[in-house]
């Protein structure tokens, strides 16, 4: 079992309250996944905004300033770093997310790249969801959309790296409730033919990598998810974020739950309705269970 919550704001007025609206949603899913939690938050940003990476190091005394100057020197670019609990958000003026990710994976294996892009920040940790949300001050965060996950691990170890969401390409993130059965095969194919790098043994990271590969081939997120229906085998409810979009897909057998709700102001998705029950305007929202094997998407997804 795992819990998922996602909130995509249509109304600009709500953006300052994204974290405040989203955090209780994820907290409500604690019973579904008490062992670790993670959140992806999308900040509004211009297309030419600095490249942004969320990084994690297991060592609490890790020297983020030193890493920032090393990174700056390697690329000849200005690097700012802000430490947030066990994570750090690194902003690189004029950088390319993919190049920075590749450098970090190659040169600094003790650092995990939780996310890379221009809008996305990912924070995840082992521990109760309520504690994880507070540790990273998620309730105070502003943004356009957020996707979170509460984990009850089945396929791999309870570690920070194994927590969701997973980011494998610029501003893309995925959370997953379920388990894939052909992820080893898909992973090998992605490594061999697309040169993708993976940081964990987690099946959900493979699903994220698959979508990254499809997007790099020119697909939109809805098309990429349609293709996933054919190529990924197993149980899944996926919630997926892109820089300006949000999408949901359940496998054709639909063993894993999902509820969607929509108003003029927002779109919300969760494993169970109780996560959505206190959002403003929910009484008049359209509430429905996403059909098996059908892709739902919003924004420029």
């Amino acid at each position, binding site marked *: 079992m795992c819990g998922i919550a996602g909130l995509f704001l249509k109304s600009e007025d709500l953006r300052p309250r994204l974290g405040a609206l989203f955090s209780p949603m994820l907290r409500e899913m604690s019973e579904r996944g008490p062992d670790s939690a993670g959140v992806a938050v999308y900040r509004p940003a211009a297309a030419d905004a600095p490249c942004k990476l969320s990084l994690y190091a297991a060592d609490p005394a890790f020297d983020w300033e030193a890493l920032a100057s090393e990174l700056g020197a390697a690329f000849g670019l200005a690097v700012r770093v802000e430490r947030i609990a066990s994570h750090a958000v690194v902003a690189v003026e004029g950088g390319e997310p993919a190049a920075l990710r590749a450098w970090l994976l190659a040169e600094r294996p003790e650092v995990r790249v939780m996310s890379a892009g221009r809008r996305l920040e990912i924070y995840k940790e082992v521990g109760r969801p309520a504690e994880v949300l507070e540790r990273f001050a998620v309730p105070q965060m502003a943004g356009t959309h957020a996707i979170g996950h509460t984990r009850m691990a089945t396929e791999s170890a309870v570690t920070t790296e194994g927590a969701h969401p997973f980011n494998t390409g610029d501003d893309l993130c995925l959370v997953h409730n379920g388990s894939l059965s052909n992820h080893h095969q898909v992973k090998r194919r992605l490594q061999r033919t697309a040169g993708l790098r993976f940081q964990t043994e987690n099946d959900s990271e493979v699903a994220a990598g698959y979508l990254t590969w499809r997007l790099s081939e020119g697909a939109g997120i809805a098309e990429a998810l349609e293709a996933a229906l054919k190529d990924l085998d197993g149980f899944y409810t996926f919630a997926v974020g892109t820089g300006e979009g949000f999408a949901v897909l359940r496998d054709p057998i639909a063993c894993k*739950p999902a509820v969607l709700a929509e108003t003029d102001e927002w779109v919300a998705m969760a494993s169970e309705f*109780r996560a959505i*029950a206190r959002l403003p305007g929910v009484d008049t929202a359209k509430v429905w269970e996403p059909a*098996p094997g059908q892709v739902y998407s919003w924004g420029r997804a």
Partner: protein
Amino acid sequence: MGEVMTKPEALDLDRMPVRDLNRRLQAAEPGDRFEVVNPLGRHSLAVGLTRPVEVTIRGHAGYYCAGMNDGGIVTVEGNAGTGLAENMMAGRVEVAGDASQSAGASGRGGLLVIRGNAAARCGISLKGLDIVVGGAVGHNSGFMAQAGTLVVCGDAEPGIGDSIYETRIYLRGTAKGLGADCIEKEMRPEHRQHLAGLLQAAGIDADPADFRRYGSARQLYRFKVANLGSY
């Protein structure tokens, strides 16, 4: 000259835990009426009722609402989550909106009415409960259903009646694929009469003449003495 109807007792789930709600409902006297406010998708509301008490849930219910119901009259004004009225024995459960997966699973008796749509596996392993769905049902509804009735006013996703035993299925819309050993059967006068009674009990205005009947071909489950040597 009817009895004076007293106002239902309000039970607010923002002020009391679900366990206390269920204790209160289970201890109620026949004919007592309740309204549950702020259900907010909480699980296991109004479960294990053994007397004809009336419970109205003002909003959406979570998983296993009205489970093991044995005589209670439970109305959900919103949607209901997974496992609605699971293993129901007697009484009546009605949902104004949609129901998630496995509604009425293993039910033995009583009436379950879902005015909206029901998701996958509605009436799975049905054992005598009657289910009337105003909308459509999801895949594998009536899977291994043994007795009772599944009435569907809308369409049925693939696999309806898969491995069915003796449950009757009445379907007004289209079956997008019958399950293994499920076949269409003749709709005789007694079936139309049976269906008319269920539609009336459910308060759903539909013409029994618009429905088709499905049931078991009895090829999958039936033990044949000629096969004894194979066991």
